[in-house]
């Protein structure tokens, strides 16, 4: 098993290494100021990381992201579960939410700015909205999909509403909750970065656009890599969590 897992890592690493080599070679050949190689990008990232103002920006993004992500997961999961319990109201409300979800939300961001002002509140609220709608939809579908057999059994046992929720519904939707948590992390982060890129005085998105106006491409690329790594670590952890929960709670059909 461990031997097979060992070889499974080789192809993706080979692909990544090949891409980096192509990048380095083309950058060396182009020798242009707007196309830095991997070495320059990493060097500028390293010097950025020594800058307290930049570290403050990273911390700002992380703080706002954490708050809006937790809020999106909690609100989306609870309201989604409540609506999912009623088939009639799901049918009435879902079309509206699906329609809202298909609208490119970034064009709504000026409304957030007008209502909440420029600052943590507006970008956090925007990141929250980017994450909460998908989470809500996933949870409604998951709750509607709780096995009818289990529901009938709990009706036969005369479970109260509360213990129905605690013993049947919540364990039934946990796998979907876990995959929703993974999906919404990326969406909340994208929402937050877009908001910061549009208007902000700190944060990773702001740093990216500030470097754009200074035309410091190597810094931008270094920050893109940093953002990727920062996004990847929680995602991998959430993936791990998801597979554990699936192993434990998923009902085989």
């Amino acid at each position, binding site marked *: 098993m461990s031997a097979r897992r060992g070889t*499974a890592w080789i*192809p*993706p690493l*080979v*692909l990544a290494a090949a891409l980096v080599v192509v990048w380095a070679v083309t950058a060396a050949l182009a020798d242009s100021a*707007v*196309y830095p190689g991997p070495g320059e990008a990493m060097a500028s990232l390293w010097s950025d990381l020594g800058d307290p103002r930049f570290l403050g920006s990273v911390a700002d993004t992380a703080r706002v992201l954490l708050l809006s992500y937790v809020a999106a997961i909690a609100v989306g999961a609870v309201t989604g579960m409540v609506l999912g*319990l*009623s*088939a*009639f*109201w799901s*049918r*009435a*409300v879902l*079309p*509206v939410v699906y329609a809202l979800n*298909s*609208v*490119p*939300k*970034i*064009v709504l*961001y*000026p*409304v957030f700015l*007008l*209502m909440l002002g420029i600052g943590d509140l507006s970008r956090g609220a925007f990141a929250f909205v980017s994450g909460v709608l998908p989470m809500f939809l996933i949870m409604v579908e998951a709750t509607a999909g709780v096995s*009818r057999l289990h*529901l*009938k059994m709990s*009706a036969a046992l005369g479970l109260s509403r509360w213990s*129905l929720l605690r013993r049947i519904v919540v364990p039934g939707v946990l796998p979907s909750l876990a995959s929703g948590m*993974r999906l919404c*992390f*990326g*969406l909340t*982060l*994208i929402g937050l*970065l*877009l908001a910061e*890129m*549009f208007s902000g005085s700190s944060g*990773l*998105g702001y740093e*990216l*656009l500030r*470097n*754009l106006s200074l035309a410091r*491409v190597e810094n*931008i*690329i270094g*920050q*893109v890599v940093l*953002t*990727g790594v920062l*996004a*990847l670590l929680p*995602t991998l952890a959430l*993936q791990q969590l998801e597979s554990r929960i699936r192993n434990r709670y998923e009902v085989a059909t």
Partner: protein
Amino acid sequence: MKARSSVVPSYVRPAPRRVAGLPSPMWTLVLVAGLVAALELYARSGAVSRLDLIPVSEMVVRSVELLGERDFVVDALLRSVLLICASFAASAVTGVAIAYAMARSRWVHRAVKPYVNVFYALPVFALYPVMVVMFGTGVVPIILLATLFSVVIVISHALVGFESAPPIVTKLARSLEMTRTQQLRKILLPSALPDILAGLKLGLAYAIIAVLATEFILATTGLGQVVNRAYNNFDTVDMYAGIVFVSVFALLANLALGAALSAFDWRRR
């Protein structure tokens, strides 16, 4: 009242056809109408400045007016539609091709799959400034980014489709000594079609989001830029009109493609 007289809890009873005399689609309408009316009343009540919010009726009137303005239609609408179509077409073709390569070769599958899995956790829009420096603020970075953003969802759906071909059919193809092209045309594509179509539907939604978002952040023309410019000029009426227009546009485009694609979906016939 009925709920109390029955010993069967409501969650196992079939959903009622009507609540308070109205079926669920009517309640959807009631909900939308209620939200719009609440916004309208709130905006007219004077509790909020006209610089922050305008009545919905004015937003709609202005966004219909926008359709009559040549500048808006040619510079913004047409341009954004062309960009969306170009990136959607590019991601549809390359997405299905990459998924086919993954289905064919185990090595490619293993090399690409982990990246497909984590792609949407990565903030792709962070790449946009890099592309702008390299290619300028023209159409190239927008198309590149929108294609990149929408291609991955096409890949992951098409891959599920290609892998859904039953093994027995693949064996049959081998014993009939079909060529690779024949296998693709007669077995893989038809069996993957419903999943590919689902992927394309999402691909369009993602392409729209990416084009509008990039235009919104940094571009000189386009639908997204209309909203951005109106916001920066404190032109609240045009800003809300642009938002309403973009929302309706995205909604209609997604619905239209969904309807068009489900005509090809043999699972729904």
